């Protein structure tokens, strides 16, 4: 009988705690991905030799295209967005004005970007590759690194 009572008390306690914290504490994790992976260019890309046609057959259509006066940019990009949100609140709105609410969140968007510059003759002129997606999300958010 005592065992049954204990189980009942524990279950009731769990229920009350869950009901109490519902809306008081919440943790949210969101991830959003746009685009397929972009990898570092290999030896098949040679400045002054590789043509626009070869690039398109190797990489497909670019994510973005920019035309400048004497050159064109093909940009291949993958974006990954992360957001962590921890919220603490006391729902007292019903009895006293606005709710007390504390929340902390961190969001970060990382890009893997390959930018290829072509001359007006459509020959590869310059390659720029930036890989950010592999950087750790939380470490990047809390890092106090200053730019030189």
């Amino acid at each position, binding site marked *: 009988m005592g065992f049954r009572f204990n189980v009942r008390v524990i279950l009731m306690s*769990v229920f009350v705690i869950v009901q109490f914290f519902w809306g008081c504490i919440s*943790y949210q994790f969101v991830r959003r*991905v746009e685009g*397929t992976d972009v990898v570092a260019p290999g030896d098949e890309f040679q400045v002054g030799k590789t043509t626009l046609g070869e690039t398109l057959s190797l990489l497909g*259509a*670019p994510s973005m295209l920019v*035309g400048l*006066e004497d050159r*064109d940019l093909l940009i291949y990009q993958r974006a990954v967005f992360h957001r962590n949100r921890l919220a603490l609140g006391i729902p007292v709105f019903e009895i006293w004005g606005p709710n007390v609410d504390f929340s902390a969140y961190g969001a970060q968007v990382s890009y893997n970007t390959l930018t290829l510059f072509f001359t*007006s003759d459509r020959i590869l002129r310059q390659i720029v590759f930036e890989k950010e997606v592999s950087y750790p999300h939380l470490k990047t958010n809390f890092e106090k690194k200053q730019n030189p």
Partner: protein
Amino acid sequence: MKILRATFIILLVSTVVVGCCAIGKNQAHQPLEADSLDKLVEGKTTATDVCTIFGAPEQVVKLSNGNAYIYTRSVDKGTAVWLLIVSFGNYDKQDDRIVFFFDNENILTHYGVSFNADKASYGFPF
């Protein structure tokens, strides 16, 4: 006593399973027909021909030596899960994209194709 116990169990279960998960899918533009690419001939097909086959481009870019017409179709799939005080969301957006490059006489010189819209997937964010 049985009614009390049943009520308690229903309350407990409903508390745990309320708002469990949701999925959603968005699409922008009609699918691009890959078979239509067979009708194109580099050095011969004009910008007008491309518009006749694929319709109005979503974007036109002025290049240093011509123009580019961009056609895009995107698929966006989202998954959301709520577990008591923890919630997760995952969104995956992928595109089908064709970029046509024209010279100053509006003759097709190159085109690039990426069909990735079907790779958009539901899932967890980790």
